[in-house]
Structures are given as C-alpha cells and as structure tokens.
C-alpha cells in the first residue's frame, strides 16, 4: 500500500521532469529536469530495498549521486562557456 503510493509518486515526478525536459526553454532547465528524475530514481531504489530486504542495490545510490553532480558541473561549465563567447 505505502510502497504502491511511493512508486506512483516517483512515477508522477519522473513524468513531470520528462515534460520539463521536453519543453524547457533553456538548457539549464533540461539539466535540472534530469537531476530531479535521477533523484526520484534513487528514491525508488531505496523503496525497493526496504520492501524486499535486499541491501545489494543500495551501493548504487552513492554512485548515482556523484554521477549526477559531475553531470551538473559539466553542463554548467558548458553553459557558462557558451554564454561568455
């Protein structure tokens, strides 16, 4: 019941960020939309681990967080360099 509600909430957040990724007027909006989708993926992995009692996939969470940070920094560098030209 609670797991179902949580999974539906993360699906809704992912759909919202996909729509923002589709429309988004600037490149920075698209980067933020991908970041929010990544965080809802992290939350879904955590919910699955709590439901099944299997802690193997929890190692993925740190990797996903660091990859999202590096992607955000690289995209912001790119946007700043494009603006400076």
């Amino acid at each position, binding site marked *: 019941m*609670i797991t179902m509600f949580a999974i539906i909430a993360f699906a809704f957040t992912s759909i919202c960020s996909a729509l923002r990724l589709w429309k988004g007027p600037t490149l920075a909006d698209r980067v933020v939309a991908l970041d929010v989708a990544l965080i809802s993926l992290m939350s879904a992995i955590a919910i699955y681990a709590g439901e099944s009692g299997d802690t193997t996939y929890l190692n993925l969470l740190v990797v996903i967080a660091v990859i999202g940070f590096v992607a955000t920094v690289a995209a912001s*560098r790119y946007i700043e360099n494009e603006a400076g030209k």
Partner: protein
Amino acid sequence: MIIVEASLIVVGSILSILAGVGLLRLDTTYARFHAAGKASPIAFLFIAFGVSLQTGTKGAALLFLAVVALIITLPLGMHLLFRAAHKANEHNYLETDELPRDNL
C-alpha cells in the same frame, strides 16, 4: 514502528510530488531551480530515514552514505547551475544585476 516508517515514506513521496509540480508549473527559470533543488533532496532525506528503519544496520549505513553524498553535492551543483543560467540569461527579470559586484 511501522507507523513511523509509513509516515516518513508518505511525507517523502508528497515532497517528491511537490518538487515535480513545481518543476512543471512555475514560470521563471530561477523559480524552477528553487523548487527542484530544495524539495527533492529533502524528499530523499525523508525516504532514506523511513527505509533505514525498515532495513537493518547495513542498509542504514549505506543510506547514510548516500544521504551525505547527496546533501553535500546537490546544493553545490545547483549553485553552479544558477550562476551559469544567470550569465546565459538574455532577458533578466532583475532591475540591478549584483552578480558582477559580488562575484560569487
């Protein structure tokens, strides 16, 4: 204990829904960054608290590592993205631009 887990997970899910709605419905870029960069890590924080009550000590340790990594890195990345978007923005909503003076 099951009530505490369930209420923490429900609060995290509602915060995640609010982050999605704010990302989709707000009308300026800065407001969208504000909605996405503050609500979503707090939502993950609540979810991690709830799940770490369900799993044992090992799962709680891994979730603690993930929460520390997210809470440290995400505001930093959002700040860099704010600055880049502010520099790239053609139509500024502000009357005076204080970014060159403060040089953040």
